[in-house]
């Protein structure tokens, strides 16, 4: 397994945002983490990325225990991430943003620039290389975050709602990009609440509800799982659905 999370608990006082969640990620797959708002998927995601340290449980990445490791140690080991609300470096150009990522494995400016140029071409940002990052709109920023993460040459890419807030056309472009990233041999974990994205991208979906994993498996099967339908729509809607109204 590339990544193994066991019994992750994240407690804020008496409240458990994540309550004993497990996750296995095999090399080369795309896994979708889904669940209604407040299900604990983002908190769980932050634990995986090293941005938050779980109250209990263990996380192993490439065989190493990374439960208490810093985000920078995660990056060095080969894990990269995007943020729900993109955090680009506003004072820098698009290319310079990507170079920050490239500097992780290349100490020299020229080498970092070469890697950045390659990644910019791959993500379709090469035309914008010298524009200031602050002039980008949301889709551009999200793409830049992915480019920056790719420049660290990761084995595992964690995408936190990388497609939220995009128009349908932009979503299609982003889905194509994620597919190309997978084709490079990079494993992807994607948090998303747009069901369409998960259905068309993920090979496996893991459903969170109230801090627990309530279903996992092929996306189609998971979506029809009664427990999942209840979690998303509530008991009342389930009755409506059975009655054939929806």
């Amino acid at each position, binding site marked *: 397994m590339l990544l193994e999370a066991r019994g992750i608990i994240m407690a804020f006082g008496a409240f458990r945002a994540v309550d004993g969640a497990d996750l296995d990620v095999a090399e080369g797959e795309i896994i979708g983490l889904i669940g209604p708002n407040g299900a604990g998927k983002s908190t769980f995601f932050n634990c995986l990325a090293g941005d938050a340290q779980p109250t209990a449980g263990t996380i192993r990445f490439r065989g190493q225990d990374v439960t208490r490791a810093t*985000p920078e140690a995660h990056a060095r080991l080969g894990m990269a991430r995007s*943020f729900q609300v993109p955090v680009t470096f506003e004072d820098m150009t698009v290319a310079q943003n990507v170079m920050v990522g490239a500097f992780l494995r290349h100490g020299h400016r020229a080498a970092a620039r070469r890697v950045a140029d390659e990644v910019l071409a791959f993500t379709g940002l090469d035309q914008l290389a010298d524009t200031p990052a602050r002039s980008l709109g949301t889709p551009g920023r999200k793409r830049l975050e992915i480019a920056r993460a790719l420049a660290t040459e990761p084995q595992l890419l964690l995408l936190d709602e990388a497609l939220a807030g995009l128009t349908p056309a932009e979503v299609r472009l982003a889905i194509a990009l994620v597919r190309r990233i997978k084709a490079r041999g990079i494993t992807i974990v994607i948090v998303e609440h747009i069901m369409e994205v998960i259905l068309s991208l993920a090979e496996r979906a893991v459903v969170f509800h109230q801090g627990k994993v309530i279903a996992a498996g092929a996306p189609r099967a998971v979506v029809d799982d009664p427990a999942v339908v209840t979690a998303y729509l509530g008991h009342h809607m389930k009755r409506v659905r059975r009655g054939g109204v929806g």
Partner: protein
Amino acid sequence: MKQWPLVLLGFVAIAAWPLLTDDVFLQRLGALVLLAAISASAWNLIGGYAGQVSIGHSVYFGAGAYASLVLYTQLGWPPIAGAPVGMLVAMALAAVVGTPTFRLRGHYFSMATIAAAELARILVANWKLLGAAVGLMGPPVPRSVVDLSFISPVPYHYLFLAVLVVLLGLTWQMQRSRMGYYLAAIRGGDRAARSLGVPVLRYKLYALLLSAAFTSLAGSLYVVMVGFIDPDSALGILISVKMVIVAALGGSGTLFGPLIGAIILVPLEETTNAVFGGSGTGVTYIVYGAIIVLIARFRPGGVADLWRSITVRMARRAA
């Protein structure tokens, strides 16, 4: 860099300045501009490039100033010989101040640096070895040329210019290296920087160590020229605030911003001091306050940013 000819021209003008006038006030002004540019450029490494706004850099300035004079009063060393010692002391202090405060963000970091600096000022004001509240004096008459005690400000002008050129050269190199990119990333956001593998605390500390060393050197150069310090003139909060304002006025986080800021602010300050005499210190505070308000309201990027937007506009009009 299309601007190199302009930069060269600027440095030639600065180098020629003391030769263009016989007026000692104006010659002295040139040296003071360069000294302010050195300390503000040193501050710029951590405050500008890394975006960690320290308002306690007087600690490092004082370290250099006091090291130079205490080694003279105790051991009879020429004041400039204390400079390397001051730089080491400043770096040690930077490690002590930086390690805990770098965990604080934004205003909290700035406030912690003020607290550390005030603590240092009060300690020194009660420390006999360092002259307590009275302060320390340098050599009253030069014992040899090594004391660097000159009546004319001109030798200081060239000494300071040499140090400034070295510091800006180093900064330029740093800006283009991994460290420059990492500091800019840290300024852009700790969390995103760390996710890309930037060891944030370590790089903040590198920047602070470099910054503290050169700020300390500025302190040593100051006492070499002035020959006297007391807790207020070496460790007062005005010393720290001045570095911030000079850098911010010119453009913090840019190579030449602090120098531009010094060229504008120091003549302004010296003129008010000359006009108002001894009662002028209060006016300095008012001027500083007004400048902070103006920069914050109209040009957070400083004069360098104003210059950039003018050149961009002219280039667009020409196209």
